[in-house]
């Protein structure tokens, strides 16, 4: 599988990273060299092997379904680049 320049633009869009037009070619080259190196995994016979979901076999911890924290809206927005009245401010999203 080879990554072309259109794929770089599509992946960058999915990843929400603005890529300058003059770096698309370089990125395609870098991604291809990494993916090409990864392709050696195709040598491995994985038929009948379950994918690993947890390295340590433990039962998922459960806790009581009750409120333990909250009403911290001032704390939650304290690091926001833009906030007003305990709300995060973003550019207009609905016309």
């Amino acid at each position: 599988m080879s990554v072309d320049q259109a794929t770089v633009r599509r992946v960058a869009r999915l990843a929400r990273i603005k890529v300058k037009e003059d770096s698309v070619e370089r990125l395609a080259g870098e991604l291809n060299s990494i993916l090409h190196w990864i392709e050696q995994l195709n040598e491995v016979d994985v038929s009948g092997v379950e994918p690993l979901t947890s390295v340590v076999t433990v039962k998922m911890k459960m806790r009581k379904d009750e409120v333990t924290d909250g009403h911290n809206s001032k704390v939650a927005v304290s690091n926001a680049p833009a906030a007003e009245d305990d709300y995060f401010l973003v550019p207009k999203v609905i016309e």
Partner: protein
Amino acid sequence: MNDLTSLTIAAVRGGLRRREFSAVELTNAYLSNMEGARILNAYIVETPDKAREMAKASDAKLAKGEGGALEGIPLGIKDLFATRGIHTQACSHILDGFKPEYESTVTSNLWRDGAVMLGKLNMDEFAMGSSNETSYYGNVINPWRRNNSNTALVPGGSSGGSASAVAAHICAAATATDTGGSIRQPAAFTGTVGIKPTYGRCSRWGVVAFASSLDQAGPLARDVRDAAIMLKSMASVDDKDTTSVDLPVPDYEKAIGKSIKGLRVGIPYEYKSDGMSPEIQVLWVRGAQWLKEQGAEIIEISLPHTRYALPAYYIVAPAEASSNLARYDGVRYGLRVPGSDIVEMYENSRAAGFGAEVQRRIMIGTYVLSAGYYDAYYVRAQKIRTLIKRDFDQAWSKVDVVLTPATPSPAFAPGEISDPVQMYLNDIFTVTVNMAGLPGIAVPAGLSEDGLPLGLQLIGKPFDEETLFQTAAAIEQVAGGYKAPKWW
């Protein structure tokens, strides 16, 4: 009083308890050393006021005969750990100005035990790197130099600031994290001891996430005993991390000095790559010989899927990173770069905030998780992970611990490795341990022809950190300690 900084934690805690010197004196000695060592760029933020205040509180406790296991011990904290009200940015521009309103569990445990915070330590951006060259705050310099050379060398990564600070004696010990080798490789590059405990031993709560199924915190320290003292305090059972395992934390120090007579040490055949440098080969053989002379039994084992661990890691880790790093969008914290609409604001913020390596990994992760590729890449990599873990599960019926080199080479110079895949190969001996969730320790075991430290790695069974400390101490006893000659 600067001699105080030459003491290990084990030595200094006795002096503090006997009131031979105060915690404030000790902290001041470190703060003055830090000032003199700024050329190393190990600290990105120094917190002298906070340090003196904490040391004063420690002195009050010590005067009353009270105090925790780390009372008055000055530590450096990797920038990946959330510290309340103090710069926490994972050395990324995207977290510009972020000061968390909460404290990570690991650092909370250290303060509970009386430790003193000296400052935040440099690292590769979001812990993605093997040389500390991806930090937004610039390269860290290794206190070690080649014989008769003034060339600056990297301290390894991603915990490069932690390793450099420990080696330069500008902290008594440091916190670090390890996703593919980020504690053990810098330890090997700086002649220090670093342990990545079993996945689930240290809480990940409040540690900026890179790849959640691989990330583990651990200490970097000057010797094996100090690493054991540090891990005892850092490890805990934590309800805030569902992967924190509900097992009591043993007194790791007790394992040090125990005889290794009869211990079965595995030497994995597959680690003997054709390209292995002769000095690494010699180091490894000599390490095995040291253990044999102390009564251990050396057993050849096979871990057939070793060579696939690194390429599989470069699917799993970027995939998890692309998901974890989706939260940095310029809305809730950190850097915001305006755009014509909200999507362009996200894109502009992330383009300006993430460095080249982080962007590369997010893109690889996004690609392997994208529609049509998920089974071919991610599911296949997780199947290979099952095979890697199975290799170890089978080895544990024959051996108690596995001995390997820690790194394929000693420290190199900044800019020497520019190809991403070549850089990734630094973790070739360490990454299997993360993929299988096992504990691994790096211990200094010799010097290269150029006079640079080299390390050996010991891999243990899940939650058997005690055998790692016991065996590492046996190596250390013969190898001795390594201290960089002071030039700064």
